[in-house]
């Protein structure tokens, strides 16, 4: 068993408990590869600074060289021309960056596909939809998944009087 495999086994067992836990596996237990979803809605208001609304620790080796991370986020916000920007970062690299305006809710699905242990590919972060065609090129990442990494979900308001809410997120780790 390599060190990375041992760390992954520890994580499945719930150790160490850092930040938000990753769980999964077994009959009667949460689905394998599904991160524990939050029990709370999380919002930003009163500031134009970008703020972290969720931070998930990913142990080294958790995303396999042929695996994928699938993050589904659900957002609500007021209908206005002011931009409400949502971002998803893995290892500090942006894989989702969408400016939401004249609508009331949005569901994003950010799929980060591994190409080996130190490269990833995903759909364009700023595409209006994570499905269908886009005029932008695919996003290429260079996050070293042989090291511990952090997945963050952030929100930023253009108008501080508004409120942008992360209603829920679901993280799935899919390793064939």
């Amino acid at each position, binding site marked *: 068993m390599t060190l990375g495999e041992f760390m992954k086994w520890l994580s499945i067992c719930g150790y160490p408990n850092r930040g*938000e836990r990753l769980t999964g596996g077994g009959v009667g237990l949460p689905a394998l590869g599904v991160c524990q979803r939050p029990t709370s*809605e999380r919002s930003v208001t009163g500031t134009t*600074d970008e703020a972290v609304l969720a931070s998930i620790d990913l142990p080294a080796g958790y995303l396999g060289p042929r695996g994928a991370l699938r993050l589904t986020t659900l957002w609500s916000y007021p209908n206005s021309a002011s931009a409400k920007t949502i971002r998803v970062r893995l290892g500090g690299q942006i894989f989702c960056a969408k400016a939401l305006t004249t609508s009331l809710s949005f569901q994003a699905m950010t799929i980060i596909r591994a190409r080996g242990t130190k490269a990833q590919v995903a759909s364009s972060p700023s595409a209006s939809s994570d499905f269908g065609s886009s005029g932008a090129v695919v996003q290429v990442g260079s996050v070293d998944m042989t090291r511990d990494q952090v997945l963050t979900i952030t929100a930023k308001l253009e108008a501080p009087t508004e409120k942008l809410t992360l209603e829920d997120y679901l993280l799935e780790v899919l390793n064939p």
Partner: protein
Amino acid sequence: MISIPVIRGLDGVLAPSEPIPESAIAVVCNGETYTVYEDGDELPVVETVPAGPTP
């Protein structure tokens, strides 16, 4: 209800200075603190969408 101070990263992004408790039912960041609401707390007022015209 718990208030967690904000810390600012080198990239300017705000983050909670400590993990958000799993017991939280709602969290609001106002640029200075992350206010964590727990079971039994009065939640912040939610802005409602005006009803559309009646058919």
